[in-house]
């Protein structure tokens, strides 16, 4: 036990002294925290739904600074558009009318624009702003849309469609003497719903489960591979020869794997914790938009941590053993390919079955040690699971970890001093049978 502690301390120190490891941890944590503070610095109201406002010190009311609005142009030969309605329905836009289609096209196309923005010869008061887009209204139900570079998130036509529809409705009602306000009120009669979710709200839980499954998958593959490479390195530089003559292989493998687990927990804990805590602190400015990713309940986080660490240890021991079967680091991926296939199959199964969390496949997977690390906590987050099921699954996982740890240490011990070609699985089984 003392020697296990020595190996653990030494290996852990190596992780913490590793500049790359620490740099990645610090950078990702800081980036995560900064992202969560973004809405406090930039106006992300389009996404968050929370308008960034500045206090007008001269008055009591909050005002939106017009200078920050995007400039849009329109040409309305037939006088169809009502600018007041435009401003009301698209409040983030500042509207200006052009004298002709050609002028609009020329300005949107940035012809004759000075570097600072609007054309020097234009009669428009554009305050040096470049028009984002322009609309040429051709009839009550049609218009042309002009934009210089259309962005991925351009939804201007969608919003303008709504404006045109409203204008049409107004005109239509007016012609027939209908009261448009009454019709609107009838159409948009408010319905009060009082939602009572009696167990789990999967529309909220789905995404954080999805993200946590991906996170644990990445941790297992990343750290598992690191452990396998580290074992192979010890074998190739013959450090293994001195180590196995200095202490029991169980201490070596368990110390190495658990140091990896602590390192991984520390790294992912800091990164994930950075996201979660800073999101909690900024949830109001995000308008709760990221709840589906970051508002993870405590019991799910605990289940994720316990089953995640369990799953990691289960695979890490196997990765350690696989690393001992080869002598060169470039052969590690070859020896661990079988393990990778199992992890990938479990990963895709777990993700594909999230929508059927009460199904028999997920139930079975949540008890198997190869898959319970992701499926059991998903069931806890999204399904109905009895406490005894969680306990039984966890006990199976713990027993399997110990069994795989002991088996891994035997393979590790056997493989460490076999140099040259990759030790075949058949040979491993034969040797293990002999040891019995």
């Amino acid at each position, binding site marked *: 036990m003392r020697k296990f502690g020595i190996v653990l301390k030494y290996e852990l120190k190596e992780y913490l002294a590793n500049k790359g490891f620490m740099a990645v941890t610090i950078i990702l944590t800081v980036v995560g925290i900064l992202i969560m503070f973004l809405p406090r610095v930039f106006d992300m109201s389009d996404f968050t739904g929370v308008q960034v406002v500045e206090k007008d010190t001269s008055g009591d009311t909050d005002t939106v600074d017009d200078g920050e609005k995007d400039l849009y142009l329109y040409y309305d030969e037939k006088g169809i558009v009502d600018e007041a309605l435009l401003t009301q329905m698209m409040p983030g836009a500042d509207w200006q009318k052009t004298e002709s289609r050609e002028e609009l096209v020329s300005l949107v196309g940035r012809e004759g624009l000075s570097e600072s923005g609007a054309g020097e010869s234009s009669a428009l008061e554009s305050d040096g702003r470049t028009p984002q887009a322009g609309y040429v209204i051709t009839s009550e139900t049609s218009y042309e849309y002009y934009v210089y570079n259309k962005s991925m998130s351009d939804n201007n036509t969608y919003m303008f469609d709504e404006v045109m529809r409203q204008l049409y409705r107004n005109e239509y009602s007016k012609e027939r003497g209908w009261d448009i306000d009454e019709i609107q009120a009838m159409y948009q009669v408010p319905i009060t719903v009082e939602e009572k979710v009696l167990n789990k709200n999967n529309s909220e839980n789905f995404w954080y489960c999805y993200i946590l499954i991906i996170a644990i998958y990445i941790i297992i593959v990343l750290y598992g591979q690191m452990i396998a490479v580290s074992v192979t390195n*010890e074998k190739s530089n013959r450090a293994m020869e001195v180590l196995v003559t200095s202490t029991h292989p169980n201490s070596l493998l368990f110390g190495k794997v658990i140091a990896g687990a602590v390192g991984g927990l520390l790294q992912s804990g800091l990164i994930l914790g950075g996201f979660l805590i800073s999101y909690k602190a900024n949830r109001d400015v995000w308008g709760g938009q990221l709840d589906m990713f970051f508002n993870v309940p405590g019991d799910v986080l605990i289940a994720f941590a316990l089953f995640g660490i369990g799953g990691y240890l289960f695979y890490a021991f196997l990765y350690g053993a696989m690393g001992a079967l080869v002598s060169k680091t470039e052969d590690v991926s070859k020896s661990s390919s079988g393990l990778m296939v199992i992890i990938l199959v479990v990963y895709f199964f777990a993700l594909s079955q999230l929508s059927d969390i009460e199904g028999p496949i997920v139930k079975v997977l949540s008890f198997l040690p190869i898959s319970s690390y992701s499926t059991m906590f998903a069931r806890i987050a999204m399904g109905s699971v009895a406490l005894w099921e969680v306990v039984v699954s966890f006990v199976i996982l713990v027993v399997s970890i110990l069994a795989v740890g002991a088996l891994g240490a035997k393979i590790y011990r056997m493989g460490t001093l076999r140099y040259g070609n990759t030790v075949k699985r058949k040979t491993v089984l034969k040797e293990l049978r002999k040891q019995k």
Partner: protein
Amino acid sequence: MVLELKDIYKSFGEKEVLHGVSLSVENGKALGFLGRNGAGKTTTIRILMDVFRANSGEILLDGKKFVPGKHRIGYLPEERGLYPKRKVMDQMIFLGTLRGMKGREAKESAERWLKRLEVDMYADKKLETLSKGNQQKVQLASTLVHDPEIVILDEPFSGLDPVNAQILKDVVNELIAQGKIVIFSSHQMNYVEEFCDYITIIDKGRVTLDGDLKEIKREYGRNRLILAADDVPPAELCQRAQQVLEGLARVFEVKKEFLVLELSEGPDRRKILERLAGSDLQVEMFGRYEPSLNDIFVAKVGEESSDESK
């Protein structure tokens, strides 16, 4: 304290690599464990260290079963065994504590050994940044950091220049003087001759020669004499000597500086001297032949090889 390996057999799969290896070494003495590449030296050492299990045979310390975990053993493997990318001092403390020392003791001992081997200035450097010779000295320091009772050195002199080799020689002599059991495996026979009281030569998994080095040398030198003559090169001297000493001795070997003669059954050295005195040869050197360990090794291993090829 006597460490003995008795009748050790070891197979890998169907192939038997050790066929009843036995050797013995006592404290305050060094055993030279010699053999060609692939002869079975490292496998024997690994069995002694409990890295491999023997198929049969026993290892005893003072007549009782030897359990490596219960003794302080310092093992310097042939192909080094430290982490190239980790700091020297960290590794030494790690190995010291792993072998039962307390952290502070391990640090003090590591500092002492690094200083003794004149590499203390590299304590905070990564091993891979050191020259091959300095890496070798660090390796030796880490072998000795926990003050082992049994020291197994597999090719300790490889990569060392003469100055560093001298430092290492002094250390090995100190270990022997301190009464430790030293097993010394090397291809550099001059070093083995310097330290070892006993030798065991292993070839193809079998011990072909073992015993007290002085006695072995005496045995190999028995009935053999050396002869050199003024202004006559050994090749020419060979023909002349065969004529002059016909019936009394034959030329056993032509060395660079002298001939090795082997006496025929019966005649003694006096008769040979008389025959030489009566010839026109100006004898420069005449005396008992004491073979080098290298000669014995080549003769013994070569003999075994030629026996097998017959």
